[in-house]
């Protein structure tokens, strides 16, 4: 069975993005093992002369390395991904490159009606940058709007149509992960390139 790491893109206790990932973990338990990972205890990303990376970031990187894929749930703050998620991704590409060629499914929940659409679009660009180089599932988008009203008391999604959409996308993601495993020819080169790249050097 595939093992996925699910990153909660918010540091708020009341995050509906965490709720969404918890639901996915339970709902898809027969087809994949999903482990939720919190990033709220990581400090703000800061470059240093000795390229220090906190142990917590290294631990998360190891989990991602060992996984078959990553699911990210991002809120939207100011039309963009949260600083805490942006910061985590910066740590997870600072001299370590766990995301290279890793299949990623992007999801997101928002209180309003747009469901974090703009944050997700930016997240795609971020994950496509040289030191992350993740394999983002193409042509797919899961936007959970009005997230405060979306779950019942047991934490299940209320709207059948939304469940159906998520089911379909998750099945596609499983296929995408399988296909991705075949696409290995350039992996070594890509890893090397990511390692050799630096925002500081040319």
């Amino acid at each position, binding site marked *: 069975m595939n093992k996925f790491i699910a990153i909660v893109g918010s540091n708020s206790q009341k995050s509906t993005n965490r709720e969404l990932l918890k639901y996915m973990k339970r709902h898809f338990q027969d087809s994949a093992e999903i482990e939720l990972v919190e990033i709220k205890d990581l400090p*703000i*990303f800061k470059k240093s002369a000795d390229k220090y990376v906190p142990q917590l970031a290294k631990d998360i990187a190891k989990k991602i390395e060992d996984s078959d894929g990553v699911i990210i749930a991002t809120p939207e*703050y*100011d039309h*963009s*991904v949260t600083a805490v998620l942006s910061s985590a991704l910066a740590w997870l590409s600072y001299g370590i490159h766990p995301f290279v060629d890793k299949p990623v499914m992007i999801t997101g929940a928002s209180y309003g009606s747009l469901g974090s659409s703009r944050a997700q679009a*930016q997240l795609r660009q*971020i994950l496509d940058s040289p030191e992350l180089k993740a394999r983002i599932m193409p042509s797919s988008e899961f936007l959970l709007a009005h997230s405060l009203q979306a779950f019942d008391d047991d934490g299940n999604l209320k709207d059948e149509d939304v469940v159906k959409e998520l089911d379909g996308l998750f099945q596609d993601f499983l296929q995408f992960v399988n296909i991705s495993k075949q696409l290995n020819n350039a992996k070594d080169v890509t890893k090397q390139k990511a390692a050799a790249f630096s*925002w500081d050097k040319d």
Partner: protein
Amino acid sequence: MKLVGIAGSIADQSYNRTLLNFIAKNFTGLVDVDVLDINEVPMFNQDDDQTNSPVIQNLCKKISAADGVIIATPEHNHTVPAALKNVIEWLSYEVHPFDGKPVMIVGASYHTQGSSRAQLHLRQILESPGVNAVVLPGNEFLLGDVKTAFEENGDLKDQRTVDFLQTTLQNFIKFAKVINLISQSNGYQDEDLSAKKGTDTTVQGIDMNDDDWLDKAAKKVNAVEGGTYVKLDSGLLTVDQLNYFLKTMPVELTYVDENNQFIYYNKVGKAEDMLAKRVPAQVGDALDKVHPNIERVMKHVKQVIYDLRSDKTDLVSMPVPGGDKDHHVMHYYKAMHDENGNYKGVNEWAVDLKPIVDQYLQQTGQKLVPDPDAKLDATSGASKDESKPAVDANSGASESVEEPAVKPEVKVDATSSASKN
């Protein structure tokens, strides 16, 4: 023009900070740039609101006071650094200093792209409703290959780059002036007559509109009274002496602080005998409580205060209509400032000019005669003030600002509690 600069990097070595410092140093004739430090800003978390921490308050205050902001952003992972996004999150949560603020984006990067993608993300972020900055369109300044761009002393090497930066900056100055003009014309609407915001001298935990505010607030802050000495800038008086002195002023004085709270008046007497009718129970009230809730009145009060607060004028004067041959009552509103020029409220005084004029005429053996050439509005002589809104305010606000100061239901209390004094 006063600008603040924010370098989007907290790295020990940042070329974006170098770029901002260069702008600050090289264009001193054009702009005055204060480069802010975002190093100590904690991670944004909804569950742990630190908006009131000194570091965020300081950023908020400086941005609010500036005519515009220059943000220099590096690019990391095709976006802005998390540290910069983090600052913007704090400044779009409980406070919104970027609202309506002109912003110019520049950026430097080690690569040929020169932070192009980060700048686009930053534009999107700044235009979101919680931030609502007004970003200078076009005029992209991308400084690529930054490692070789500066001299040892931090100056940009390439003269054409410096020239382009200057053109961009000049465009921004024009842009900022226009944007600030637009936002200023509505500025008075932001005056909060309910005094909810508070200021550093606002007494916390006591209802402003409580009739016994004075006693309760005085107790809360352990206010001195009676024979205790108070050292003033140019004198030493006891609280009693201060009272004797202020009560015998030949004008009626009222103190409204910068938070629009009415905190003092000097003449305690029967309300109906006063030029500006005040009663003890009103002391401490927010301004919206001492004026009738009529939109036109509130608007004029806001305009007068806004003009004083924003230095459009430092004195607004208006005659009270309905004067007769024996009375010409004027109200004057004078802005008060601290030693650093910060607005500290309104010193309002009301005075009847007629006895003064009469005395002058008597002593100099003259008399008043009607001026056949006088234009109608010459009667409100003092309204020949330069400040346009103040003149407008005259016609409507004059009756409104003062007359309603005593609401009928308070009046009864007023006389009784006033007579206790």
